[in-house]
């Protein structure tokens, strides 16, 4: 029988595939769902790791105090140089988007934005720290302008930055990420290069306004959606670039110091929820719900295109709310343990435990996009406008889909989810023993966090398995 397997055996299955077959419109190859045996093993590993972890993890907090070691000092010119590169890359992307070929796959802009920027930087950040910060184009422009203004105006004539309203917290970042995710996953013209370029300009303009009102550093750490988003992942890295110094810390340690200002939990729920929807919207569950939603919006009087967009918007928001609700449920459970912690305090103080889970979701859903479509950079860099030019002689390069097999991708996906789960668990454990006076209460609170983590990891695994059936 083995032999017959080797011989081509074609099965044709009539499937109601969802209309949005490729979420980004750039993808030439989609991942296969993980097989059942791998799903079973992954789920088991998650549970075993959880129980063993709960039984054997350290009894005294270990991560709560930052232990950093400065290993290098950096020249001031580095920051300037990176800023110039960042602004140049931003300018080139926008120019390509506006002036180039308007087919998404032939233009540099969509691949730079969706693959290198949106997916590549989180991977780089988790490994090498906050690498986006020095290259951040709008930050570089704002710093340049402020330096110029400082030289030209008299010192006292420049207005002071407004105090940043505490209620605003990370909410501007929540809105920014939500809008980006909507464009990426829902918007019909998601790969239209000139539209993307215009949105990028609009985004940069809003950031410049925010920075000029509240100060560059303040806005960057609270309101600049992408800076905040990348910084969250960077906190998991052992490298910390602070000012002109490079410091080394233990992995995970950086995220412990996340200040839970308003909107922090909302941001993490948005991150996990939108990535979930990317997987969910390609699955059979969604394709059985979507037509009903779509016909509802058609009946109200929207055209087919907008009805689909609206249906997907509902799905996207629902997914974010489900993730937020799951976390809230766990927190409400932890609240019953007592010792006088309020639910909102608990929600904030455990928010950082969601960061590794959010990263795991990003890896599980976008690893193959980065590995495959990242290669498109080779020919797009040579031909950024899609007009047939060949600047670096790589214009005829293609995407090599054999660099990693489907099996390899499965292991990366499942490995990321399991590792993210374990990291979340460690962070929650450490925070609990630091917060609760009695060890018994700390353990009891951890049953609830464990339930939250297991639900997120199971959801992640389910999205990989059932989602693409």
């Amino acid at each position: 029988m083995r032999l017959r397997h080797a011989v081509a055996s074609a099965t044709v299955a009539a499937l109601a595939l969802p209309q949005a077959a490729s979420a980004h419109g750039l993808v030439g190859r989609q991942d296969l769902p993980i097989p059942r045996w791998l799903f079973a093993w992954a789920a088991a590993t998650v549970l075993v790791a959880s129980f063993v972890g709960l039984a054997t993890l350290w009894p005294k907090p270990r991560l709560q105090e930052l232990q950093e070691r400065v290993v290098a000092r950096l020249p001031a010119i580095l920051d300037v140089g990176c800023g110039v590169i960042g602004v140049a890359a931003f300018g080139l992307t926008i120019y390509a988007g506006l002036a180039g070929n308007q087919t998404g796959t032939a233009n540099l802009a969509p691949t730079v934005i969706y693959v290198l920027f949106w997916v590549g930087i989180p991977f780089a950040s988790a490994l090498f720290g906050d690498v986006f910060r020095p290259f951040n184009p709008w930050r570089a422009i704002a710093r340049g302008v402020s330096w110029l203004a400082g030289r030209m105006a008299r010192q006292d004539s420049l207005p002071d930055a407004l105090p940043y309203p505490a209620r605003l917290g990370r909410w501007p970042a929540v809105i920014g990420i939500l809008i980006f995710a909507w464009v990426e996953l829902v918007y019909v013209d998601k790969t239209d290069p000139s539209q993307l370029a215009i949105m990028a300009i609009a985004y940069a303009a809003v950031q410049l306004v925010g920075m000029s009102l509240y100060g560059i550093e303040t806005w960057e750490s609270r309101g600049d959606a992408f800076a905040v988003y990348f910084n969250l992942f960077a906190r998991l890295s052992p490298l910390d670039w602070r000012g002109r110094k490079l410091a080394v810390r233990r992995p995970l340690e950086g995220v412990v110091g996340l200040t839970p200002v308003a909107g922090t939990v909302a941001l993490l729920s948005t991150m996990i929820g939108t990535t979930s929807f990317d997987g969910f919207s390609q699955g059979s569950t969604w394709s059985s719900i979507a037509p009903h939603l779509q016909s509802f919006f058609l009946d109200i009087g929207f055209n087919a295109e907008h009805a689909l967009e609206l249906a997907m918007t509902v799905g996207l928001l629902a997914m974010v709310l489900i993730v937020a609700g799951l976390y809230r449920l766990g927190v409400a459970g932890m609240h019953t343990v007592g010792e006088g912690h309020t639910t909102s305090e608990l929600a904030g103080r455990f928010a950082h435990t969601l960061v590794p889970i959010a990263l795991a979701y990003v890896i599980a859903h976008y690893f193959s996009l980065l590995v495959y479509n990242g290669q498109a950079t080779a020919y797009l860099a040579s031909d950024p406008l899609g007009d047939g030019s060949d600047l670096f002689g790589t214009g005829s390069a293609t995407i090599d889909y054999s660099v990693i097999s489907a099996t390899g991708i499965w292991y990366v996906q499942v490995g990321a989810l399991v590792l993210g789960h374990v990291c979340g668990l460690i962070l929650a454990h450490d925070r609990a023993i630091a917060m609760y006076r009695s060890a018994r209460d700390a353990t009891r609170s951890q049953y609830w966090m464990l339930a939250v983590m297991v639900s997120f990891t199971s959801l992640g695994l389910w999205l990989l398995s059932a989602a693409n059936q």
Partner: protein
Amino acid sequence: MSRNQRFILLGLAAVVLVVAFVVARSGSSEEEGGSKSASDTTSTTDNQQEAPTGDAHRPRKPAAPQVATIVVKGGKPVGGVKRITFRKNGQIVFVVRSDVADEVHFHGYDIAKDVKAGGSVRFTTKAKIDGRFEVELEDRGTQIAEVEVTP
């Protein structure tokens, strides 16, 4: 945490491992069975054509190909977008019959062939890459099928 709690948790971990082992085993054997029956019922003519000489005693019928065929009417696939599944390292064969002229693009493998109105094109290639790939009417931008290559 008390010693007893610790033992209970570690015991639970052991139980989960055993359950997972059982589930994973039954899952993989079922999968094996499932794909066996699939290949039994859907073995294509290509199999028979390439069958070794051992099958020579069977009367060879003239080819009545059951090659997966995607029929396009009015620029849309008849019966919706279908998934055609092949095994890795096997042979991918499918035919697109269209009543409109367009370019058929098999993504990933990146093979593009022009089809005339009322004509058909045949795609044959070795299944070297696993994954799911779109087959698209390039000019219209309409997906007409999905090719799945399983490892």
